[in-house]
């Protein structure tokens, strides 16, 4: 054995360590891959050894190789081995490797669960830390589910280092296992007020990250964050919070109003640019949410814009970039304020930094107006010429097109100018966006009727010079433009000046080098051209000319027939045959032009891109319904397959529609016709209403084509857009003069009493009349198209699962799966850990259950309203609340659900929603017809009492609480501070160790309780080999690992170094819970210090009080009343004298120690409710007299009740 060890360590000396590996890789520059594969072989050998140090070294090298891009998934198991090393240095290597290479698909990952759990509960904070860090990288849904509870425990670890990590990793857990969000949320919220700033900021981060995805669920946290924002000085936290508010304000504009002031203060005061920037961003978000909001916010906008200008003017490129980014957000809602900085932004276009130029371009998009469009585009065009990088040039190109075409060409006053711009853009070499230009050309030519003539002349020029485009730029997309050019020339051939010339241009042999789809369009449009030439010639009586054209076609078309592109080939051969046929006819002097042009008669209308999608589903049409009933595959048919057809035939006559059906069919047919008539996509034989629509006055009567004669219609060669700018200026000047003249005239007219709008003296956008009377044909949409846009939410978005209402009270079934027993755990199969659906042996009676569901529904509604009311209330208070004193320390209970302090909240909310609540009550009663009358009366009486109480409580205006501080988030306004309490009670202690325990019931297991024992090492020696032995009673038994006997001790799964404490959990099975009981137990351990080791023992008595079987369960007053009415509860009461404590604290004590929740509180009288793990309902009525307290209890089990009351008496006596 020893020999082997020595041998192992000698071997190790020859192993490469990481540095050798790195050096080796550097020395093998030429054959790196070979060297590495050799290294990997060595590593494989090393991994086979038993020595953990060797393995760790190997895994360390693998991690490096992984970063270089080598797959190391084959070593996953070895990584796990290294992770489980006891030495921290190895463990860390293991976790690092795991975090680099593990992912959800790693199959061995499930093996890590127990190891990670062990590390999480390790006494060394670094072990825990490294486990948390690693886990965050490879957490899977399974791991998240199994470990959620452990991590949640760590959130209240004593060390901030661990707390912080635990809080952060919870985010990953939420993502993978969304069910954990609700149970963990209260504690997460607690962490927002953690004394350690690191933990606090971690919590802020997690909540911000959650809220960013589903902001509406976190609106109720706004007051808390607001407080943090006004009190925190940590810029990192502030940034996050401010970002969060940015996400919340769109949902609640009133929040925005509240935020504006502190934010502007921050903007003024902060010296940190990052914070300033985020503030500005959020202010912008606020202003957007207020949109049309109040006028006095123009000051805020001005402030933002000013600050941003400072950023943009800064020499630091980063500031400039972000300034522009933020500016573009303002632009959306307040374009005017940004437009005044046009100079600055145009200046940025000259910046040497491409990112900045792109940002500036974005801004330009929103800054154009009718007035400055030409100027801006001109500037951009010069940039296009200068730009060296193709990406940037392409970006410029798309931007120019975007800018011009935005909102339906709103800003274009002269389309001839635009067409010339487009034509100029075609000269760009190597752009990818030819198709974009082509689309624009088509769009403009189709939709702007007035421009067609000009467009056609330009396009024919383009076609003429097509060889330029096609030859040099074959590979890049600019030849796409020819697609548009050909189509336009063909479709609007009547506008062509020299159609014959164009026809020849399109039939040039060079054309065959173009891409197939363009050739296809060429072929098709050649015929259109041909048709129109034929017509011209025939009308002019030039039969020979017509024949010459035909001959040209017959000569040239064969080049397309040989095309490799199927589409081109098919079209060409089809057309060739047609032309040959025409030629024959022409030879016989038959006039053919009419018929040929009939091929292309009619006009094409633009159809909106979404039109097809928007066709509404006709009424009565169910797309999911079967058209034919599916064949039923009943057993009998399966057995006799042959009979199927036979029977089918027999059945058919039965199914034949009766006469009534025939009528129905006729009616349907009629309806369908109607439907089709309205459907533009249905091809009809009859003249379509669509065509008729064109003939209707609507379109035709719009005055079209009044082309300004100052613009030459035919531009020789390719036009320069610049000349339009000049012309435009002249034109505007002229227009202005005319207008002035007209105005004078008008003034005279006005004297005669004609009322007109007096236009502003300055030249505004509206004053610029477009050069052409432009008639933009709007795109067609189907009638009664659905206005809604499709929901573009991605169903696979992982964050959607986290869209969870956090204000609902926790249901029992939602509790996190708690690890029952560490030792027992290992023997269990993993499936057993799955959080099962709530299992209850004693289910409430059916009626009751039904009722409960109803209640729950109601409660939900009510809760929502209450939540709203609370928030509304906070939002309506105008002055920003002063930083309130830190709220009372919340007792660090292990129970997550509502406890101790719920009482006043409920009441407060009740008061707010009183009216609504009553309505609910009334409803509930109406529905519950079975309830006897006298009970109703009683109920009413109760209600009256309640209302009286509420009215009293109302007298104390809730505003006063408000003024005192913040509405307390995790509880309610507290009158006085409660002393911090711990649910852990001292079990036993000696000089070595202190034991404290907490007993928790869980509704998931009706007869099990979990005992959490905290062991604290008070000595200077290390405690190990701890064993817990408990003497079982008949009634209570400890769950032990399988196979161990009753007398064996159960080991504690950790060791305790001096001064450290840790918690172990044990599960006990209880048969009857109606009486309290005690179990004797002994903790034995070995205390080891420098002087040696001693065996020590500590006896303890585990006290299972009846209260520990209770589980805090919220209950609502009407459900509570119903429960009392049901009458099958036995009653008992106690009275305790000499109590000084305030009623508030008293209730809190009962809630805390006995796991009750307050149902309702009226003055010094309160009803409380709780439920045992076995489903007993326990109701209490607590009344406070002068110096005494009386407790009346009702419970479905009288023994349980009396034991409980005894315990309560003891608690109260201590008060």
């Amino acid at each position, binding site marked *: 054995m020893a020999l082997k060890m020595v041998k192992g360590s000698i071997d190790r000396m020859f192993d490469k360590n990481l540095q050798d590996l790195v050096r080796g890789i550097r020395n093998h520059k030429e054959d790196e891959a070979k060297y590495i594969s050799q290294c990997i072989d060595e590593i494989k050998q090393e991994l086979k050894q038993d020595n953990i140090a060797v393995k760790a070294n190997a895994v360390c090298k693998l991690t490096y190789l992984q970063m270089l891009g080598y797959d190391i998934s084959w070593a996953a198991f070895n990584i796990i081995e290294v992770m489980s090393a006891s030495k921290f240095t190895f463990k860390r290597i293991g976790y690092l490797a795991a975090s680099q290479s593990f992912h959800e698909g790693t199959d061995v990952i499930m093996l890590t669960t127990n190891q990670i759990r062990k590390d999480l509960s390790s006494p060394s904070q670094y072990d825990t830390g490294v486990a948390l860090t690693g886990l965050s990288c490879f957490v899977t849904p399974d791991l998240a589910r199994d470990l959620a509870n452990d991590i949640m425990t760590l959130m209240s670890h004593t060390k901030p280092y661990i707390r912080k990590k635990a809080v952060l990793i919870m985010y990953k857990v939420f993502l993978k296992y969304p069910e954990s969000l609700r149970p963990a949320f209260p504690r997460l919220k607690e962490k927002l007020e953690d004394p350690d700033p690191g933990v606090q900021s971690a919590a802020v981060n997690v909540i911000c990250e959650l809220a960013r995805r589903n902001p509406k669920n976190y609106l109720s946290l706004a007051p808390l964050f607001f407080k943090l924002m006004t009190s925190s000085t940590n810029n990192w936290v502030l*940034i996050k919070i401010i970002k969060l508010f940015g996400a919340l304000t769109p949902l609640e504009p009133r929040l925005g109003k509240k935020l504006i002031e502190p934010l502007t203060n921050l903007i003024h005061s902060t010296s*940190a640019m990052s914070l300033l920037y985020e503030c500005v961003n959020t202010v912008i978000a606020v202003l957007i949410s207020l949109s049309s909001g109040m006028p006095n916010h123009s000051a805020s906008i001005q402030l933002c814009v000013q600050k941003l200008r400072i950023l943009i003017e800064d020499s630091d490129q980063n500031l400039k970039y972000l300034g522009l980014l933020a500016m573009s957000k303002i632009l959306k809602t307040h374009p005017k304020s940004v437009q005044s900085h046009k100079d600055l932004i145009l200046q940025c276009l000259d910046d040497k930094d491409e*990112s900045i130029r792109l940002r500036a371009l974005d801004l330009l998009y929103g800054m154009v107006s009718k007035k400055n469009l030409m100027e801006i585009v001109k500037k951009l065009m010069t940039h296009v010429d200068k730009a060296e990088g193709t990406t940037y040039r392409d970006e410029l190109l798309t931007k120019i097109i975007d800018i011009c075409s935005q909102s339906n060409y709103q800003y274009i006053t002269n389309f001839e100018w635009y067409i010339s711009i487009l034509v100029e853009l075609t000269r760009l070499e190597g752009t990818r966006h030819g198709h974009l230009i082509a689309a624009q050309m088509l769009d403009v030519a189709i939709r702007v009727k007035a421009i067609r003539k000009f467009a056609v002349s330009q396009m024919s020029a383009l076609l003429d010079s097509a060889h330029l485009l096609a030859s040099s730029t074959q590979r890049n997309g600019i030849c796409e433009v020819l697609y548009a050019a050909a189509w336009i020339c063909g479709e609007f051939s009547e506008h062509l000046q020299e159609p014959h010339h164009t026809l020849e241009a399109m039939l040039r042999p060079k054309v065959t080098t173009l891409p197939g789809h363009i050739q296809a369009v060429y072929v098709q449009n050649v015929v259109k051209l041909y048709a129109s030439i034929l017509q011209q010639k025939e009308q002019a009586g030039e039969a020979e000319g017509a024949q010459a054209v035909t001959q040209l076609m017959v000569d040239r078309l064969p080049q397309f027939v040989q095309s490799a592109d199927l589409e081109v080939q098919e079209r060409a051969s089809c057309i060739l045959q047609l032309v040959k046929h025409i030629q024959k006819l022409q030879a016989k002097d038959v006039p053919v032009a009419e018929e040929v042009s009939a091929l292309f008669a009619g006009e094409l209308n633009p159809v909106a891109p979404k039109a097809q999608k928007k066709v509404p589903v006709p009424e009565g049409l169910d797309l999911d319904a079967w058209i034919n009933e599916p064949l039923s595959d009943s057993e009998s048919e399966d057995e006799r397959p042959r009979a199927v057809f036979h029977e089918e035939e027999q059945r058919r006559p039965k199914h034949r529609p009766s006469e009534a059906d025939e009528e129905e069919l006729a009616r349907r047919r009629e309806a369908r016709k109607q439907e089709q008539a309205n459907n533009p996509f249905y091809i009809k034989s009859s003249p379509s209403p669509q065509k008729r629509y064109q003939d209707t006055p609507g379109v035709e009567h719009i005055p079209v084509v009044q082309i300004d004669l100052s613009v030459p219609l035919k531009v020789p060669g390719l036009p320069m857009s610049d000349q339009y700018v000049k012309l435009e200026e002249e034109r505007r000047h002229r227009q202005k003069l005319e207008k002035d003249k007209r105005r004078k005239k008008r003034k005279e007219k006005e004297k005669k009493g004609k009322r007109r709008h007096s236009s502003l003296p300055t030249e505004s956008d509206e004053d610029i009349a477009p050069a052409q009377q432009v008639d933009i044909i709007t795109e067609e949409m189907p009638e009664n198209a659905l206005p809604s846009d499709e929901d573009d939410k991605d169903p696979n978005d992982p964050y959607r699962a986290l869209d969870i209402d956090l204000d609902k009270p926790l249901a029992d079934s939602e509790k996190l799966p708690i690890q029952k027993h560490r030792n027992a755990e290992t023997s269990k199969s993993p499936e057993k850990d799955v959080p099962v659906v709530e299992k209850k042996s004693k289910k409430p009676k059916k009626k009751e259950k039904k009722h409960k569901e109803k209640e729950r529904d109601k409660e939900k509604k009510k809760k929502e309203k209450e939540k709203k009311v609370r928030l509304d209330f906070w939002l309506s208070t105008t002055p920003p609340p002063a930083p309130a004193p830190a709220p009372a320390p919340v007792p660090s209970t292990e129970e997550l659900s509502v406890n101790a302090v719920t009482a006043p909240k409920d009441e407060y909310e009740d008061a707010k929603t009183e009216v609504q609540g009553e309505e609910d009550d009334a409803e509930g009663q109406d529905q519950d017809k079975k309830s006897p009358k006298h009970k109703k009366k009683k109920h009413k009486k109760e209600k009256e009492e309640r209302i009286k109480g509420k009215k009293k409580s109302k007298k104390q205006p809730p505003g006063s609480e408000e003024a005192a501080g913040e509405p307390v988030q995790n509880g309610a306004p507290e009158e006085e501070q409660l002393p911090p309490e711990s649910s852990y009670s001292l079990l036993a202690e000696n000089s070595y160790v202190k034991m404290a325990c907490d007993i928790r019931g869980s509704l998931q297991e009706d007869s099990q309780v979990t005992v959490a024992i905290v062991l604290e090492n008070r000595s200077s020696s290390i405690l190990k080999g701890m064993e817990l032995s408990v003497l079982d009673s008949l009634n209570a038994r400890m769950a032990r690992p399988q196979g161990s006997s009753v007398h064996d001790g159960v080991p504690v799964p950790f060791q305790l170094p001096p001064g450290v404490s840790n918690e172990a959990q044990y599960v006990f099975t209880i048969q009857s819970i109606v009486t309290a009981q005690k179990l004797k137990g002994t903790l034995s351990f070995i205390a080891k210090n420098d002087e040696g080791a001693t065996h020590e023992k500590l006896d303890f008595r585990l006290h299972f009080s009846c209260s520990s079987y209770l589980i805090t369960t919220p209950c609502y007053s009407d459900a509570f009343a119903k429960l009392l009415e049901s009458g099958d509860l036995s009653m008992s009461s106690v009275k305790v004298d000499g109590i000084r404590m305030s009623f508030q604290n008293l209730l809190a004590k009962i809630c805390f120690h006995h796991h009750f929740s307050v149902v309702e509180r009226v003055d010094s009288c309160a009803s409380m409710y709780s439920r045992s793990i076995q489903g007993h309902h326990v109701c209490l009525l607590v009344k406070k007299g002068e110096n005494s307290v009386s407790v009346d209890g009702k419970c479905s089990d009288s023994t349980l009740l009396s034991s409980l009351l005894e315990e309560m008496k003891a608690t109260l006596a201590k008060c």
Partner: protein
Amino acid sequence: MIKAILIFNNHGKSRLSMFYQPYSEDTQQQIIRETFHLVSKRDENVCNFLEGGLLIGGSDNELIYRHYATIYFVFCVDSSESEFGILDLIQVFVETLDKCFENVCELDLIFHVDKAGLVGAPARAVSAVKNMNLPEIPRNINIGDISIKVPNLPSFK
């Protein structure tokens, strides 16, 4: 959230990388290559932000980088991070490295990947910033002016 941290040299050779979303090794290398091409093209005195959104995840993401001597430090983050914050974070990270190695240079990164901090350093800076929401290291930084105090990292050994 920080989606990935990439460290590579002037020639695009990866020195350290950390991805917080699972990608296959090939994709990771592809991302590093593309990022390198984006970043290396840029001049020294241009801004440190890049919309490289398509590399990792959606268009929400951006690349924030700094270039020190022969090494690029690139962080890929989504919109919930403050751009300036990340820039400072990189600064802190580099200064931490500098503390660890005294005049840190590329060779340190190459040879001491495992040393005192390195395997730790990214993992730790990363864990501190985990998820990647800053707290520990940057806590002492005044974001506005770059007067950064590098806090003591807890020593492991």
